[in-house]
């Protein structure tokens, strides 16, 4: 065992898998010599050489497009998009090819590849360095979208993503990159994509969150328990295909649901989960399923960033209202 941060776990997962499978290559902007601006790929070039870990020219669309070519040519590319706010040029490749090559060719060609990118706010960054736009990806048929929130899950989920036969968007909560350490096994292990994690058992309220927002969600859960409110905390971990069974089981038990995420509200991940539970757990619900999310606004520059973010006390307050709800 080793105590690792999330960013170190990303690096460890890549190290472990590249050791296991010589078809894995990783590239992107500053990924080679520098080891990535967050150091996710540090030492990989030293260890595996320039053919397996390298800097690419600065063009997100071609990074993803060439990665798809490599995947069709038998490699397993893991590409880094330096910040999720710069993935938009690559949307053409992601939507028009990466997500649909298996379907288009009826399985003759596939896209086993991972597109990694740091996302989330709260780090006092420049414009376009703070957004949480996972819902955009969740809406694209044919790709999986994964967001870990702990070092242990990061390694296990990233290894699953690399081994997956389909393309995976792997969004890393950069606010938590170095927030805390956790014991992480040195060998390879996997955490299944499509399976949520129950972080804390509870009976009165289901609190669902993921990624960077899990920090506040955990703090809120602890405060609520101290208050005598038994909240069940679920870490969604996979945005698509999300773990419907775990969500439903929990909501049917607690009768109350609060979904918390940083990304904008309308047409977001919470909207999907609430629409689903409102139908499939309708007769179990004791209060309106509720979401606490980022607003439908442009993410502010640092001086007003705190107005955008969801804070622990806000989660606690909202949870209390749900538990006290009387029809």
């Amino acid at each position, binding site marked *: 065992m080793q105590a690792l941060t999330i960013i170190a776990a990303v690096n460890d997962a890549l190290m472990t898998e590249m050791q296991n499978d010589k078809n894995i290559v990783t590239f992107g902007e500053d990924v080679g010599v520098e080891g990535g601006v967050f150091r996710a790929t540090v030492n990989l070039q030293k260890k595996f050489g320039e053919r397996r870990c390298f800097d*690419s020219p600065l063009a997100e669309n*071609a990074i993803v497009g060439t990665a798809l070519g*490599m995947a069709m*040519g038998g490699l397993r590319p893991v590409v880094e998009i330096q910040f999720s706010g710069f993935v938009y040029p690559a949307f053409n490749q992601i939507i*028009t090819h990466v997500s649909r090559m298996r379907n288009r*060719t009826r399985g003759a*060609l596939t896209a086993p590849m991972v597109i990694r990118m740091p996302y989330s706010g709260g780090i006092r960054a420049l414009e376009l360095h703070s957004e949480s736009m996972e819902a955009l990806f969740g809406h694209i048929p*044919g790709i999986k979208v994964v967001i870990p929130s702990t070092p242990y899950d990061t390694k296990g989920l990233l290894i699953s993503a690399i081994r997956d036969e389909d393309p995976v968007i792997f969004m890393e909560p950069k606010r938590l990159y170095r927030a805390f350490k956790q014991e992480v096994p040195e060998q390879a292990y996997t955490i299944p994509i499509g399976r949520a994690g129950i972080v804390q058992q509870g009976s009165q309220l289901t609190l669902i969150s993921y990624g960077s927002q899990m920090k506040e969600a955990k703090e809120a859960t602890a405060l609520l328990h101290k208050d005598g409110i038994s909240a069940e905390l679920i870490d969604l971990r996979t945005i698509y*295909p999300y773990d419907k069974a775990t969500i439903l089981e929990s909501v049917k038990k607690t009768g109350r649901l609060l979904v918390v995420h940083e990304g904008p509200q309308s047409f977001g991940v919470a909207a999907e989960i609430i629409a689903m539970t409102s139908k499939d757990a309708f007769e179990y619900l004791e209060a309106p399923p509720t979401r606490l999310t980022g607003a439908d606004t442009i993410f502010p520059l640092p001086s007003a960033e705190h107005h955008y973010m969801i804070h622990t006390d806000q989660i606690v307050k909202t949870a209390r209202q749900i538990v006290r709800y009387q029809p």
Partner: protein
Amino acid sequence: MFENFDPRDGKRLQLLDENGNLNSEVKDLPLLTDIQVLQAYKTMIITREADEWAVSLNRQGRMPTYPPVKGQEANSIGSLMAVNNDDWFVQAFRELGGLLVRGVPLSMHYLYFLGNEMGSHYEPKKYHVLPISVPISSQLPHAVGLAYAELYKKTNKITLVFNGDGGTSVGDFHESLNFAGVWKAPVIFYVQNNQYAISVPRHHQTASTTIAEKAFGYGFTGVQVDGNDIFAVHAASRIAADHARKGGGPTLIEGFTYRLGAHTTADDPTRYREDEEVKEWKKKDPIIRLEKYVLNKKLITEKQIEKLKKEAKKQAHAAFEEADSFQKESLENTFRYTFKNMPPILEEQLRQRRELERGVN
């Protein structure tokens, strides 16, 4: 490479002129053997017949929108004949002749345009062909990635990729040339400059004199060839292929050609080009000049040609009937290939669809 044919000096490589005469002065260029010439000619004939049949089927209401290839056949046929069968062939959508060189059944091409995904189910190990790419030029990065993969695996395989003159305005074109140059990727970028992107003429796409010259800005060589001259297309492609295989990196070939038909069966070209222009280009038809050549050289007789065309027609008709009677795609298949394993959410949506289609009360 191509020192005597620098597009920046206004040079264009031509070996076979409009009258079917082979330029005997050009030395040191790989020429098609007589057997290859006949093979190329036959493939051009079947491509032309198959293409015209598709257009005619569209008029009969038996074929949805179809993009004709007529007039451009020499480009993909000549270049595909210059590479190996296990080199990657990345299509745009006007490379029917190239597909036939590869041995892809004509019925698959029809099946695709009939609107069935099974028409893109080329077994990659058998054909090394990527499916038709509808978003213009977005296939170019895939070619560079494939080339990188083969370089990585040290297989000595190269990649031949196509797009059109309109496609040279797309970012993917520039990014792909740039990446390929930096990576010294073994790729041939073949641009079929057929003078129009639907209605937009070439000079509205780029201010540069030729498309070929753009390659030099990315650190490699570009050459313009007469795209209606199969000897020139083949020679340039062959040289570019050898160069790539030897580790020399990419080459850009601009095939200077013309689309004799409409952009697609939904297009009316009289809105944007003069009949006079079309007439002039008809004289440069790649089939007419190759026909003159094979007859002059007595590689074939008039009678054999007649028979060949008749057979090609029959072949096209049979291929279409085969495609037309192919099983329609099922509801299950529209779900099945989204992922390798269908996730529960999708399984549930499939169940719902099935029930809705069954008509539950």
